[in-house]
C-alpha cells in the first residue's frame, strides 16, 4: 500500500462526489418550481461539482502540464460561472421578472391572522 494507491483512492473520491453534486444540481434544476430557485440549483453543479471534479482530475494528472491546464480552466470557471449566473439573473430582473417572495408572503399572513 503506497502513496500511489492513496492518491488514486482520493482522486476517485473527489471525482465521484463531484459527479454526485453535478447530478444533484441537475435534479434540483428540474425539481425546483420556478426560474429564480432553479438558478440556485444550477449553481451547485457550478461550484461544488466543478471544484471537486477538477481537484480529482488534478490528482489523476499528477505534477504535469495537464494539471496546470486544469487549474487554469478551474480558475476561469471560478470567475466566469458566477458572472454568467449574475448576467442571467440581472437580465430577468431588468426585463421585469420579479421573484415571488415566500418571506413577504409569510409576514403578510402573520399580519392578517
Amino acid at each position, binding site marked *: 500500500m503506497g502513496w500511489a494507491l492513496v492518491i488514486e483512492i482520493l482522486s476517485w473520491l473527489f471525482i465521484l462526489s463531484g459527479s454526485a453534486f453535478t447530478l444533484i444540481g441537475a435534479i434540483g434544476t428540474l*425539481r*425546483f418550481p420556478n426560474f429564480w430557485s432553479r438558478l*440556485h440549483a444550477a449553481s*451547485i453543479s457550478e461550484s*461544488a461539482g466543478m471544484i471537486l471534479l477538477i481537484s480529482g482530475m488534478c490528482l489523476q494528472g499528477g505534477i504535469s502540464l495537464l494539471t496546470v491546464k486544469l487549474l487554469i480552466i478551474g480558475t476561469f470557471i471560478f470567475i466566469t460561472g458566477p458572472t454568467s449566473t*449574475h448576467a442571467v439573473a440581472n437580465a430577468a*430582473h431588468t426585463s421585469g421578472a420579479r421573484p415571488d417572495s*415566500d418571506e413577504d408572503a409569510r409576514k403578510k399572513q402573520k399580519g392578517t391572522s
Partner: protein
Amino acid sequence: MLRTLLTALTLFALWLLMSGIYSPLIIGLGIASSIIAVITMRRMDNAADAQRMQIYLKPIATIRYWAWLMIEIAKSNWMVTKIILSPNMQMNRHLFKVPYTQKTDLGQAVFANSITLTPGTISVEVEDGTFWVHAVSYASDTKDALAEMDAEVSAIESVVA
C-alpha cells in the same frame, strides 16, 4: 516599458503552458502572437476611452480569503443539497438589499461574485451602495452572514490613494 515586457513574457509563458508542443515552429508562433497581442494592447492604451486595469488587492490576504470562501461554498452547497433532496423542498425565497462597503470596482465585483458563487444566494442588481440579492432559503442570519462576507472582502482591498 517594464509593463509591456512583463505582459509579453506572461503571455508567452501561458502559450508554453497551454501548447505542450515544443517544436521551433510552434514556439516561433508563440513569440509572434505574444508580440502582436502586446502591440495591439499598446495601441489600445492610446484610445480616448482607455482605462488601465488596476488591482488594489493584498496578495496574501486574498489567498486567505479564497480559503475562507471555499469553506463558505462547502457549507452552503450542503444546505442547498439538503433542500433539493428533501421530499417537500422547504424553501423561503426572498429578494432583499445588501449594503456593500468596498471602494474599488474590483472589490465590489469580488463581493458580488462571491455572493453568487455560494449556492443559495445570487446577486441580481447593483445600485448605489447596495446589491439586490435573491436567496432560496432566507433566514434571520442570512443578512449577518452576508455582512460578514462584505467585511472579509473589504479587508483584502488595499487602500486607494
